[in-house]
């Protein structure tokens, strides 16, 4: 690097650039937060959906599954599982309920979480609400 470009020039670019782009991120964040209500349908976040999200977290579902593509890649995507299961929360409840406690020989299997019917319905309600978020048409198809 030539003599005209000094260490203090480089330092100023670092501090100036970082502050500028961080402020830009903050501005875009405000704009994003303002436009979210139209996309996330928060009017549908019922106490049941809130409970469902809490249970989703308390059972570490993200440790195997992805949700909107984020998480672990060991088990299927779940942001669209409501649609994949024929838009049926009952099918989601039945699937989680029927997992064998000792697993399936030689295959991946979801643990048996021993949740109550009320809890299972809350998880299904959370997944149904998630499936309705406007996420720019991701995933590309029903298989997730």
């Amino acid at each position, binding site marked *: 690097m030539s003599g005209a470009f000094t*260490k203090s020039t480089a330092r100023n670019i670092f501090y100036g650039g970082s502050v500028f782009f961080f402020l830009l991120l903050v501005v875009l964040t405000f704009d994003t937060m303002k436009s979210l209500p139209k996309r996330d349908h928060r009017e549908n976040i019922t106490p049941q959906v809130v409970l469902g999200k809490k249970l989703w977290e308390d059972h570490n579902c993200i440790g195997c599954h992805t949700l909107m593509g984020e998480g672990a890649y060991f088990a299927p995507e779940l942001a669209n599982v409501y649609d994949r299961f024929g838009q049926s929360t009952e099918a989601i409840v039945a699937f989680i309920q029927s997992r064998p406690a000792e697993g399936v020989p030689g295959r991946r299997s979801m643990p048996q979480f021993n949740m109550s019917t009320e809890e299972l319905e809350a998880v299904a309600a959370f997944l149904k609400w998630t499936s309705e978020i406007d996420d720019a048409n991701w995933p590309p198809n029903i298989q997730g």
Partner: protein
Amino acid sequence: MQYQSQSVAKLYFIAAIALFVAQILFGLIMGLQYVMGDFLFPEIPFNVARMVHTNALIVWLLMGFMGAAYYMVPEEAERELHSPKLAIALFWIFLAAAGATVLAYLTINYADLARLTGNDLLPTMGREFLEQPTIIKIGIVVVALGFLFNIGMTILKGRKTTINLVMLVGLVGLAVFFLFSFYNPTNLVQDKYFWWWTVHLWVEGVWELILGSMLAYVLIKTTGVDREVIEKWLYVIIAMALITGILGTGHHFYWIGTPEYWQIVGSVFSAMEPIPFFMMTLFAFNMVNARRREHPNKAAVLWALGTGVMAFLGAGVWGFLHTLSPVNYYTHGSQITAAHGHMAFYGAYVMIVLTMISYAMPLMRGRAGANSNKAQVVEMWSFWLMTVSMVFITLFLTGAGILQVWLQRYSDSPLPFMEVQEKIAIFYWMREYTGLVFLAGLVLYIISFFVKGEEKAA
């Protein structure tokens, strides 16, 4: 080693390596579960193994960063550490918290752990990488504050070098952005949005400052190149890292319910994120070529050069591969992501911590310049075994990812997730075998510490 208090770093480095071993063992367990689904089920389900694998990685890298700071900050500041006792106390608190967390993951049902640790009061658990009980997160903040106080006071009272200031800015940023882990709104979209403020602004933001600072320090020490030159490079690299990386956060906001303009912002800025990593490679090679002395620690120089190259490949090239939104539409959350994650973390953060350990450990063990040539040869073998096997792990996961994207997302008749997993199992097997080679490299790495003798200072 010029200051006695630098030696507190040794504790941190030893614990880091121990957790590194745990991370790799649980990685191998998960790798096997990918192809033998019932392995260790239901005793250690995949999600538990994954928590240990990822959390051990994060904690050992933090241990490595802290150890590095305790080693280099006093020397740069030209004075003893403000409080070595505080550094030692915080080490044991941090280690106990990390150990308790891992044990709890392995012995207690996660939902019970959430209940027992009061997750209902302030729910922060059950989100990727932030699975630690809330009380442990608070403990991490306390340790970080004590650590920053100790490092900050040392810098404040001593010589203020660019390397120290950049390290401090990076570490303060690390602590500040971790605070977003306590924000968990009930609205999933907002939850995800601010989750990235911890995760992305760490690894593609402030951690790069820590990485740059550590690399610059080791290069000054091993090459003897003029400090002014090295510090100018450092500023340019971290300037590019944050200028591209801050808005590069947008590449996580394509498909989580956020507005479509993020597809443009995220694509443009994250496409430039390889630039600082490429500059790191140029930096390392140029400084070593322009060296004014032959440092006897050749292994440390090898690690430093390796960091530049592998960080560029893993974070830069493999990141770019799937960062443009039209591509990411198909690759998002696939084995392509896993491939990138593995080589980026290894190349950037694992290797820089191992670079610092390689440089500092012989000096802390009272050796004049470096380990014996024999020890260095063993260490360099471990470098090649781990690095080459990580390249192959990445290639196998990339192969798995390309097929997965094709079969599940792109072809005319997309197949269900589990059917695709079975079709690509061969790649998972090859990844697992390569993982065993990585483990062999790690064992060799540990053996290298027990090879006796020393080389004189240059």
